[in-house]
C-alpha cells in the first residue's frame, strides 16, 4: 500500500499543481488591466492602484505564483480583495454548514442506496421488482436540483408549515436544524443513492449465478443466509468505489442545492466570489475542491484493495 501511495503521489501532485496554475493564471489573463476590471467601471484611480498593490501585479507572474503557493503550504490562504478578511476566516465561517449537509447526505445516500439495492437485487414479486426498477431508473436520471425543486413543490402543498429555506446549526439547534437539513440532504442524496442501488442490484444478480452460490444452495443453506452471507458479501466491494466517487458529486451538487434552499455553505461562497471576481477566494476554493475530489478517488481505490485481496495496488 505504501508503494501504491508513492506511485500515485506524482500524478496527484501534478494534478494539484496544474489546477493551482490554472486557478491562479486565469484571472490574471483577463484582457486589459485586471485591477481596473476588478475595481469596476466607476472606480477612482486610487482604488485601482490599491487593488494593484494588493494583488502584487507589479511583480513577475512566476514570483507572484510561488509567493501564493508558499503561503498556501504554510496555511496562509491570502486575503479577500472584496471584504479584506482572510480567506481562511471566510472559509471557516462556512465549513460547518457544508460539512453538515455533505455528511447527512452521504449517510442518506449509503442507507437509501443500500436498502434499495439489496431489495432490488433479491428476488421479489414481479410488480415490486418492476416498481423498484422504475424508481431507481427515475432517480438516476434526475439531477439533485430537479429532485429538490419537486420536493419543495410537494412540500408546499402537503406540509406548508415545514421550513424550507434557511439553515440552523445541527449542533446548537438540533431540532430546527434537522428539519431544515432534511430536504436538501435528501435531494442531494437521492440521485447518488439510486446509482449506488443500481450497482448493488446488478452485482447481486451476477453473484447469484456463480457456482459457489449454487453449491451453497445444494448444501441446503437457507435462502436468507445465502443472501446475507454469500451474495451480499461479494456484491458490496465495488459498490464502495462508486460510493466514494459519488461523494465527489455530492460536493458539486451541494452548490446548487445550497442556492435552492438558501443555505450559506462553501458553494455559495464560491459562487459569490466568482460573481464579484474575488480571485483570492476563488483560487483557494478551486484548488481545495480538486484536492478533495482527487483524495477521495485515491482512498476509494485503497478501500477496494483492502476489501478484495485479489486487487494488488503495488502492481499498477
Amino acid at each position: 500500500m505504501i508503494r501504491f501511495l508513492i506511485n500515485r503521489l506524482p500524478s496527484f501532485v501534478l494534478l494539484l499543481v496544474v489546477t493551482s496554475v490554472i486557478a491562479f493564471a486565469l484571472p490574471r489573463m483577463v484582457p486589459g488591466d485586471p485591477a481596473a476590471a476588478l475595481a469596476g467601471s466607476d472606480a477612482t484611480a486610487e482604488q485601482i492602484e490599491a487593488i494593484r498593490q494588493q494583488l502584487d501585479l507589479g511583480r513577475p507572474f512566476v514570483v507572484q505564483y510561488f509567493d501564493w503557493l508558499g503561503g498556501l503550504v504554510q496555511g496562509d490562504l491570502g486575503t479577500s480583495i472584496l471584504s479584506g478578511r482572510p480567506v481562511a476566516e471566510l472559509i471557516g465561517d462556512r465549513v460547518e454548514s457544508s460539512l453538515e449537509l455533505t455528511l447527512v447526505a452521504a449517510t442518506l445516500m449509503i442507507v437509501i442506496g443500500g436498502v434499495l439495492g439489496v431489495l432490488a437485487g433479491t428476488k421479489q414479486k414481479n410488480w415490486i421488482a418492476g416498481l423498484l426498477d422504475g424508481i431507481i431508473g427515475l432517480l438516476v436520471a434526475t439531477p439533485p436540483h430537479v429532485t429538490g425543486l419537486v420536493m419543495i413543490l410537494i412540500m408546499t402543498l402537503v406540509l406548508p408549515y415545514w421550513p424550507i429555506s434557511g439553515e440552523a446549526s445541527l449542533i446548537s439547534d438540533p431540532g430546527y436544524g434537522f428539519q431544515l437539513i432534511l430536504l436538501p440532504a435528501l435531494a442531494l442524496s437521492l440521485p447518488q443513492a439510486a446509482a449506488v442501488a443500481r450497482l448493488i442490484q446488478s452485482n447481486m444478480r451476477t453473484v447469484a449465478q456463480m457456482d459457489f452460490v449454487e453449491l451453497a444452495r445444494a448444501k441446503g443453506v437457507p435462502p436468507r443466509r445465502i443472501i446475507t452471507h454469500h451474495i451480499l458479501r461479494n456484491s458490496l466491494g465495488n459498490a464502495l468505489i462508486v460510493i466514494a466517487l459519488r461523494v465527489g458529486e455530492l460536493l458539486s451538487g451541494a452548490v446548487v442545492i445550497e442556492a435552492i434552499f438558501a443555505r450559506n455553505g462553501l458553494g455559495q461562497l464560491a459562487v459569490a466570489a466568482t460573481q464579484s471576481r474575488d480571485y483570492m477566494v476563488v483560487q483557494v476554493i478551486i484548488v481545495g475542491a480538486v484536492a478533495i475530489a482527487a483524495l477521495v478517488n485515491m482512498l476509494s481505490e485503497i478501500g477496494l484493495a483492502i476489501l478484495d485481496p485479489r486487487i494488488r495496488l503495488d502492481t499498477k
Partner: protein
Amino acid sequence: MTDTAFSGPRASKSRGLVASMLRTYASAFRRPRGMLGLAILSVIVLAGLASPWLWPGGVDQQSRDSLLGMSLAHPFGTDQLGRDIFMRTIYAAKISLGISVVAVPIGMVLGTLMGLSGMISPRLGTICVSLFDLLLGFPGLILAILIVLMVGTGWLSLVLTISLLSIPQFGRLARGAFLSEQAREYVQAATLLNISKTKIMLRHILPNTLDPLVVQLGLVLINGVFIEAAISLVGLGIQPPTPSLGTLLNSGIRYIYQQPLYAAGPTVLLLLLALSFNLMADALNAATGRDAQGDR
C-alpha cells in the same frame, strides 16, 4: 455487438447503407415511445419558436399586475414585475434547449474523434482516455467557475462547460466500440489494403460505432439542459432579465409561497423534457437492437 438488421459490418461508402441507417433511426419514432417523446418535444419547441407571434409584446413586457394568480390571460400568473410567467417559461425552454443543442454536438464530435483516435496512434488513444477520466472526475461546478473566470457569465460559458462535460460521455462509448471493432476482420483487411489509418477510422470504424452514440445523444442533450438550469440557477449562467429555465427557477424559488407556479412551471418543463428525451432514447435503443438496461 451490433447484430441488428445488418449482420455484416457497415461501410459508409455505399449510399444504400447510409439510407438504411437513417431508416432505422426514423423507425424509432414510429414506436409508441418514440412518437410520444417526439410529440412532447415538438409541442415545446414549436411553442417556443412561435412565441414572438403568440405574445407580440415580448418576454420582458412588464405591468403593474405583479404576482397575480392563475387566470385565462395569465395561465401561470405573473411574476414580481408583472410579466406573464407562462410565456417566459415557454421562451426559457427554447433558450435552455438551444444552448444544449449547440453545445452537445460539439462535445459529441470531439469526444467521438478522441475516442476513435486510438486508430491513428495507440498512444494518442490512451492519452484521450486519461483526459476522459480527468473530465469525469472533475467537479462540474468547479469547471463552470473556471470557465466563467475566463469568458464571463453568459451563453458562451454555458456552451463551453456543457460541451466539455459531454466529451467523456461520448468518448468512452466511442473508445469501447473502437476497441471491439479494431480486432475485426474488415479493419484488418482495410489495413492490409494499405488504406490510411484516418480513413479507416472515419470511413469504416465510425459508421459501425454510431448506434450507441446516437442513443447517447438524447440522454446527453437533456443532461445539457439540466446543467444549464443548475448553473443559471446558481447565478453563473444566463443573466436576468433573459429568461432561461435556470434564471426562472432562481427567482421562482424566492417567491415560492406567494407564487408557487413561478417555480413549478420551469420544473414541470424540465421534467417533461427529461421524459421526452428518455422516451426517444429508449425507442432508438430498441430500434437499433440494444436492450434498454444495456451499457450504462
